């Protein structure tokens, strides 16, 4: 197993930042078209972290969050998770649906909207990543879950046949002219695939 204990190399970080910029820009354009208003998407932070730290980053084991998860397979397999604190997710749904009143519950419409946003952001990220790494990655349809952060994140990771020790984490900020919504994008890859992926990006 290739351990990335020393963190990302300069080149890996540079390439990943470029991939993320490209995919968030495309997602922002698509979301803006969908809502016919200006939606901005930024990713100010990027890191390789452990399961314990990612649960803390996302608000702690017991905090309630809503997530969108896609499984991907192909030359490497894993899954991608876009997770929002509950209040942020509800705010995001209102923002996309252009409603003035904040929702209090996650209903079917909300699930569908979040599924769409998660699908968009994750698919753009995965496809840009596979272009850069020259690896074929095919995503599943989105799954939307509301539960405790610990339960969501650990289960997403352990769903993999050989669970990884390290997770690629990208902080995301989604905003319109008025509001900013924080989210967390996480990439879980089968045991040694994160190393393969990073190497592929680096040697490109």
């Amino acid at each position, binding site marked *: 197993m290739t351990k990335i204990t020393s963190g990302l190399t300069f080149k890996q970080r540079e390439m990943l930042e470029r991939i993320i910029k490209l995919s968030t820009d495309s997602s922002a354009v698509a979301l803006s078209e969908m809502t016919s208003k200006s939606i901005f998407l930024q990713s100010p932070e990027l890191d390789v972290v452990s399961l314990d730290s990612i649960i803390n980053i996302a608000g702690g084991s017991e905090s309630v969050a809503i997530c969108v998860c896609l499984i991907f397979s192909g030359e490497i397999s894993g899954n991608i998770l876009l997770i929002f604190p509950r209040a942020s997710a509800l705010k995001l749904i209102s923002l996309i649906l252009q409603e003035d009143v904040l929702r209090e519950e996650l209903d079917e419409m909300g699930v569908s909207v979040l599924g769409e946003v998660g699908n968009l952001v994750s698919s753009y990220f995965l496809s840009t990543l596979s272009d850069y790494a020259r690896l074929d990655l095919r995503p599943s349809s989105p799954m939307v*879950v509301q539960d405790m952060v610990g339960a969501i994140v650990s289960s997403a990771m352990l769903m993999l046949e050989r669970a990884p020790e390290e997770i690629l984490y990208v902080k995301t900020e989604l905003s319109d002219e008025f509001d900013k919504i924080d989210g967390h994008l996480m990439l879980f890859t089968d045991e040694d695939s994160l190393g393969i992926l990073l190497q592929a990006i680096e040697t490109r």
Partner: protein
Amino acid sequence: MTEINVGIGELKVSSDKDSVIVTRGLGSCVAVCLYDRIAKIAGMAHIMLPSDNGRDADHSARFADTGVPRLFEAMVKAGANPKFMVAKIAGGARMFDLPGGSQLLEIGARNCKAVIAALESLKLSLAAADTGKDYGRTVELSVASGELRVKAIGRGVTII
């Protein structure tokens, strides 16, 4: 009341009657609890996966096949008598669902099966279980009573 926190893949044993052993945000993971009702010694392991496939190098409780025996040993070392030990388990949910399903989503059920098999091979009887379904759980084991409180969002508390 003191809280003894069991992190992911960890195990803890206590005989302090003023404490509860807690693990938070269990999804497909399984909390295995052992309790000696006479000596009032309690232990909990946070199991992540069914089997370590022989790669076990550390002393964690990550895997059912090695973690459950380790919890048992830690209980005995703390003075618990296997004759008076009972087991309770919680967790092993199926957190994600895909149309058409996928083998990958069954990890919670596989964890439960592996935990039960490990308990059986130690001749420990399973007193209660709150497993499966599609939601996360937080569990608290009382050292004084052996009672296991299971909390889930929007579902209140179940005591097993």
